[in-house]
């Protein structure tokens, strides 16, 4: 466990910092997701939430799968292009392990919120 998640986090970070210098707009990530809210047009959060399943044997955990999530908050209805990029990154790093768990609109802030959940080994 950990390899897929680390590579996914690295990929997400690379994505949020812009792949090439020509890409001016970047996606800020909340550094401490529990308590920060970057002041940006769009921003994202990636985190591991809890253990989803495990294969136990010989008094040990042989394999553990963790469930995590990627959140995208955006003032743009289309997610300013981040939706496609995040989906593509998820697909590259964990195949079909992810799904869109919720998509909401916040009337108070005018933000659109996407939440993808994924399961990694």
């Amino acid at each position, binding site marked *: 466990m950990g390899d897929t998640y680390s590579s996914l986090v690295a990929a997400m970070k690379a994505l949020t910092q812009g792949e090439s210098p020509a890409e001016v707009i970047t996606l800020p990530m909340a550094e401490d*997701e*529990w*308590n*920060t*809210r*970057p*002041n940006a047009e769009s921003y994202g959060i990636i985190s591991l*939430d*809890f*253990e*989803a*399943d495990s294969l136990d044997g010989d008094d040990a955990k042989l394999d553990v799968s963790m*469930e995590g*999530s990627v*959140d995208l*908050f955006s003032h743009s209805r289309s997610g300013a292009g981040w939706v496609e990029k995040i989906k593509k990154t998820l697909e590259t790093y964990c195949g079909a392990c992810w799904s869109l*768990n*919720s998509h*909401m609109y*916040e009337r*108070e*802030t005018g*933000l659109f*919120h996407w*939440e993808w*959940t994924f399961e990694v080994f």
Partner: protein
Amino acid sequence: MSYTVKTEGMEELERVLYALGEKAENIASGALYEGAGIMADEMKKDAESIRTAPFQYAAEGKTRLPSPQEKAVVTGAGKLGIAKFRKEDGEVNTSVGYGRSGYAEMAGKIVPIPLIANSINSGTSFMQRQPFVRKAKNRGGKRAMEAIKETIEKKVEELIKENGG
């Protein structure tokens, strides 16, 4: 899922299969009810463990915890439910959660319960996320499946005995 049913004699087998065909839906419903109960219990337990803080508007650039009033919306009696069983083409389906919970009163306002539940479960830009429904689903899923399997096996065995198998 597949089950092995043992019976002796062709006539008995015919009787058992006939009875099984007639009662399959009832057996499935009973088993599903057991499983749904386990899921609902897990969800209730997790809803009760939601962390709260007295309500205050989230500070600039910060998020806040759900307020006790918001928690009360999802933990109050009759809020969490098991949907009416849908029987179609030999399948029985239901859902456990807040999907059809309706509305509740919160701080003098009427709010939709599923909206509050989703806001706590998935978080918002100003509220911290506490994925209690997803956690319950992961933890209870296996146990619910086991319970469903056990109930079906027990009921099928009873049916075989009734029909002299």
